[in-house]
């Protein structure tokens, strides 16, 4: 018995066998690469760059938009509004079904289902569920204005030229 115990002790007092180290290394390798693949798969889900208009784009210098301007940029789908020294970029994609809304001095009007918005993009009528979003405007170091459609700001937050 004691002999058997002794033998067992010899076995357990020597836990780091060659076999164990190899098993440990193998599992580390497989586990590690599995984790890395899971990570990379998650990162790959969102594309780094898409073709088509970048979310952040330049719209020219503030001088291109004299005070009182309300102009729709069709390709970029954004309306640039300037009142005095205040400027804003408001989306012209209708929040209802995505038609392009018309820009007028009195506000925005959607031709598809008759949604109406006031000058700041708040819904005044029709089926549109939400007001038109405002996008962040910023002045790039080269003196050009940049619109970032990736960043919505609270309506009424004007950019001062």
């Amino acid at each position, binding site marked *: 018995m004691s002999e058997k115990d002794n033998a067992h002790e010899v076995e357990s007092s020597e836990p780091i066998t060659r076999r164990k180290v190899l098993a440990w*290394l193998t599992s580390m390798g497989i586990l590690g690469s599995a984790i*890395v693949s899971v*990570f990379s798969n998650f990162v790959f889900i969102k594309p780094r760059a898409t073709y088509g208009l970048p979310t952040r784009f330049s719209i020219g210098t503030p001088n291109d938009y004299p005070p009182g301007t309300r102009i729709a940029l069709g390709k970029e789908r954004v309306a640039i509004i300037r009142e005095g020294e205040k400027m804003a970029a408001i989306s012209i994609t209708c929040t209802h079904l995505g038609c392009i809304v018309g820009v007028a001095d009195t506000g925005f009007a959607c031709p598809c289902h008759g949604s109406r918005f006031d000058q700041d993009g708040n819904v005044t009528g029709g089926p549109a569920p939400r007001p038109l979003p405002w996008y962040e405007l*910023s002045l790039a170091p*080269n003196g050009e204005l940049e619109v970032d459609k990736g960043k919505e700001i609270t309506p009424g937050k004007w950019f001062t030229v």
Partner: protein
Amino acid sequence: MKMRLALAIASILILVVHGFIFYKQFFHKWETYQASYFDQARTLAKTDQEKDALSGRSAKIEQIIVTQFGNERVDRCTTCHIGSDDPRFKDAPHPYKAHPYSAELGDKQGADGKWERRHKFSDMGCTVCHDGQGRGLEEFYAHGEDEFWNDPMIGYVTQENWKYKDKLKGKEFMQANCAQCHTDKEFKSTPLVNKGRELFIQKNCYGCHRIEGISNGTLGPDLSEVGKKWKLDYIYESIVDPRANSKTSFMPKFNLSDDEVKALAIFLKSRRGFNYAETNLDRYRMTLNKGQVTPPAPVTDKSPVPAANDPVARGEQLINERACVACHKIGDKDGGIAPDLSFEGLIKEDKWVAAHFKDPRALVPDSIMPTFGFSDADYQAMTAYLVSQKKTPSLNNPQEIYTNLCLRCHGDKGDGHGTIATYLDPYPRDFTNAGFMNSKTDDRLMNSIKNGVPGTSMPAWGKVLNDDQVKGVLTYINQNFTKEARTEIKKRDVPEKNPVADTPESVAAGESIYLQRCTGCHGRKADGKGPNSLDILPRPRNLLNAGFINKAEDRRLFESILYGVQGTAMPPWIDYGLSKDDVGNVINYLRSLNKNKKDLVAMCH
């Protein structure tokens, strides 16, 4: 145990590879650049507005999509060169460095000292001026290596390995890309392109090379898209040393200054086949009315005319300016490609020279001389100068005569491989071919020397040499090259005049015989380029050579067809069953092919 070891090693290896790929895919150089840029920009930002603009910005791929220049361009250059439009970074190191402002490019400085760009990056992108691959996010892909890239970035980066980088330094070669949109011939900001275009005409490049919309030369390669295919360095080299890149090129070395070569190279680099400002629709329209859009070779006559009153002096000036001696020989100047014009005044009449200038192939059908589009006044002046070359050479013995007059084409061994022989068609006669030489009478050979061979480059030396000299040369040729005693020439039974009347029926019968018997060598078009012609030396005669055919007597044609031409591949057709009537019909057919060209030929000799 071995299996476990292998498994462990393999799994660790896989982890390492995975980790490496992960690192490569998700840790980019451009992220480091952008992070560093944002850090620097934040310390530079003074006003709240500037700080606001930077808040929340993180490293991401920046791209400019340009749709207004033909095909859609996606330029991601600003991903690394993120400070390129930030004037605060004008002295920063690459890749943060801001693109310089320059009044030459049309940038304007406002009253507050701030510059405004004429070519806004957000409208134009980068590759439209700088080339390179806009989508590339690594230096290798974006800038391109000019050894194996069609459009490497045209700029300082790729110059490193250029052979001629000392001569093409600076931003001058950027003009080639300005000209992609600014096609105006007088556009102020591309002086080198404009000068190159002028030189292309002035130096007669257009005579051999085609550039769509400018010239229609066929002798050299089409240069319409040369700027797309080759780098600037290669183009430069091809101009200064045509044989450096193409061993078989016979383009002459033109005597151009470094500045002229540079202008030409930059002009050629700007030839990409289309212009960026065109849309696909524009290009489609161009292809629809092709032929109409190509204007005739424009001839700009901007050379100074100090000697306008004296046509001979003016002609001399023109001939020197327009690089005629790049191919021809006049006196001491020898281009080594085309015939000697030193005795032109003795050999040719002014009528012939003037007509030949206007259309070389009307008189020598297989000549490679380009048709230049000079003005009539220029042609007259050049003709006057050439015809004034009347100095009789003092040649004492047959050897001197041969060396000075014959050797250039017929070669120092008399085998027809003279220095310019490859550029002549028909090829100069091989005097070592005894079979041919001894089958012709002395009279016939003397006649060829004295009166030349019409429709070929063989001039009538009888106008330079007297009969004794001609006889001497013939003896010299016979003794030194043919080296066989003249044999008795068999009397052939051939009629002096074609006995078959020239009727449409006879021509039709001749044509059918021609199609059956002759096309293999002389070709379906009778232009001497039949399928067998490539294997035959001397080459089959071009039977559309009106100068030759109309001058050849019936007797000679009869003899050549019926009894063959000894020393050549032309067989005696009498052995293959052609009767005299058949040959008469064939001759009528051949004459009918050249009938309408008689007026021009009247000028030959």
